[in-house]
């Protein structure tokens, strides 16, 4: 004999917040979401792993060849860039996947309907989601960049060319590589919000970052020189990771300038994503 009624009332007092602070609460919820799925940890481990793998291969390789290098090659060697360029070069691939999935997985699983039912204030939801992802990608970017830098310098010790953070431009390069990773993730996040599809978001992100700069090279030389500095991908990475300036391609802004252009595009995509997220039927 089962009882004829089910008491659904809360035994514990369910708090009814009078002074609602939806953003803080949604931020906590978004953090719970991102830390409670395994793919987050896989992607984070992958990002750090590929950064360090590049660093080891590049720096250990240089160190072993050092004795046979010409004086000119030795002068052009940038120990900082050698250790951290992989963070930006390979890390952008991983963080773009993570950024796209951060928003599109809500759509592919249908979770978005549940999420928006419990938090119908869509700009709040979008902001909390973007802020949570931004926080995680900053931690990841800085972690991978500094870890790669220190590991790389240790591997290059035998060359006596190792860099320290106190040298000019070195800290700037390490920080810029970390920020580049975070901006890249948010760039993909914005595209994911606009396109609402994992495949679409990734195709658009990689297309804009890799394909468009290649296509731009087909432009007549003078046009290319005018256009190239305004492209989101392309030659940004050598510029922001370089400390000596010798490797800088012409026609580009400074490291901060290039990063600012990329961040500008990202802000535009995030704004468009926020509008789309708020206006469209879920």
């Amino acid at each position, binding site marked *: 004999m*089962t009882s*004829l*009624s*089910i*008491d*659904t*009332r*809360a*035994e*514990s007092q*369910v*708090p*009814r*917040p009078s002074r*609602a602070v*939806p953003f803080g*609460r*949604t931020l*906590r*919820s*978004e953090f*719970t*979401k991102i830390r*409670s*799925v*395994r*793919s987050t940890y896989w992607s984070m481990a992958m990002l750090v792993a590929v950064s360090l793998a590049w660093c080891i291969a590049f720096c250990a390789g240089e160190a072993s060849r050092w004795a046979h290098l010409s004086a000119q090659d030795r002068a052009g060697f940038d120990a900082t860039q050698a250790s951290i360029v992989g963070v930006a070069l390979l890390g952008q691939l991983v963080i773009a996947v993570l950024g796209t999935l951060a928003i599109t*997985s*809500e759509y592919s*699983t*249908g*979770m*978005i*309907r*549940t*999420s*928006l*039912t*419990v*938090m*119908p*204030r*869509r700009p709040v939801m979008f902001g909390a989601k973007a802020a949570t992802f931004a926080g995680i990608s900053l931690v990841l970017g800085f972690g991978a960049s500094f870890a790669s830098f220190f590991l790389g310098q240790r591997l290059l010790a035998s060359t006596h060319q190792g860099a320290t953070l106190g040298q000019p431009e070195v800290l700037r390069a390490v920080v810029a590589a970390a920020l580049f990773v975070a901006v890249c993730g948010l760039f993909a996040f914005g595209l994911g919000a606009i396109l609402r599809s994992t495949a679409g978001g990734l195709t658009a992100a990689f297309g804009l970052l890799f394909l468009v700069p290649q296509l731009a090279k087909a432009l007549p030389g003078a046009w290319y020189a005018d256009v190239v500095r305004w492209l989101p991908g392309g030659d940004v990475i050598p510029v922001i990771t370089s400390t000596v300036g010798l490797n800088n391609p012409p026609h580009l802004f400074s490291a901060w300038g290039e990063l600012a252009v990329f961040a500008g595009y990202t802000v535009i995509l995030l704004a468009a994503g926020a509008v789309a997220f708020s*206006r469209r*039927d*879920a």
Partner: protein
Amino acid sequence: MIEARGLVKRYGGTAAVNDLSFTIRPGQVTGFLGPNGAGKTTTMRLILGLDHPSAGAVTVNGRPYAQLASPMHVVGALLDAGAVHGGRTAGSHLLCLAQTNGIARSRVDEVLGLTGLTSVAGKRTKGFSLGMRQRLGIAAALLGDPQVLMFDEPVNGLDPEGIRWIRTLMRSLAAEGRTVLVSSHLMSEMEYTADHLLVIGRGRLIADCGMAEFIARGSGQAVQVRTPQPDELTQAVTAAGGTIAPADDSYLEVRGLTEEQVSDLAFAHGIRLYHLAATRVSLEHAFMELTADSVDYRAGQPA
């Protein structure tokens, strides 16, 4: 209390919901019926602000849903049991929902217990059966201890025990004075559960009335009889103002007269009856009659 006024939702050129107005009152279970594609789910999505109406408005407790800062304390909804991230555990899923509304972790454990999911709280929902997902969706709806509950096809995929559990739950929720709106295709289930009916077809309101009234709106009461003297009975019934028509096998169906009247008539004319019974018109029968014109996808007649 849910109030819709002149609600319209168009997708492209077609209106999924067309000028719908209704009020769903507390303290009773309102059954939401309609053929496939009638607009039931769309209406529920409009109530929850997931879709924006093309015209009209709908409010929950007097306010548009999107303006609620802590909607889980006002409305609990189960629209689609599949709308979860399969990689997340049941406990984490409920926790991330609870946190958006400032609901304590202890309430998460409480609703897990209430829905019988405590033992699988740490399991990822990917491996859940449809029945377990339905329970998880119901657990989520109950988190904020809300006054209004909405369930879209809640008994889908449940075994008989689960169906009984849902039925008892709905009745209990309404008995506690809450507003309960539940959609279903299963008419027999609705007959057990609902007090009030909201029936739509092709996005338009067909009926908004009590269960008994809805059934009465159908072709009404009929009396089934079997007799070796069908011609005499037909004459007598027609003379008394009733109608008579052959039904299944050798039965006849009398309309417009009560059981007693048919019995008296037969007795007065010396007509022998082998069988005499009033047939109860089921909700399903009444529903089929009233929505016959508004079925979008009809099964073909076998040749």
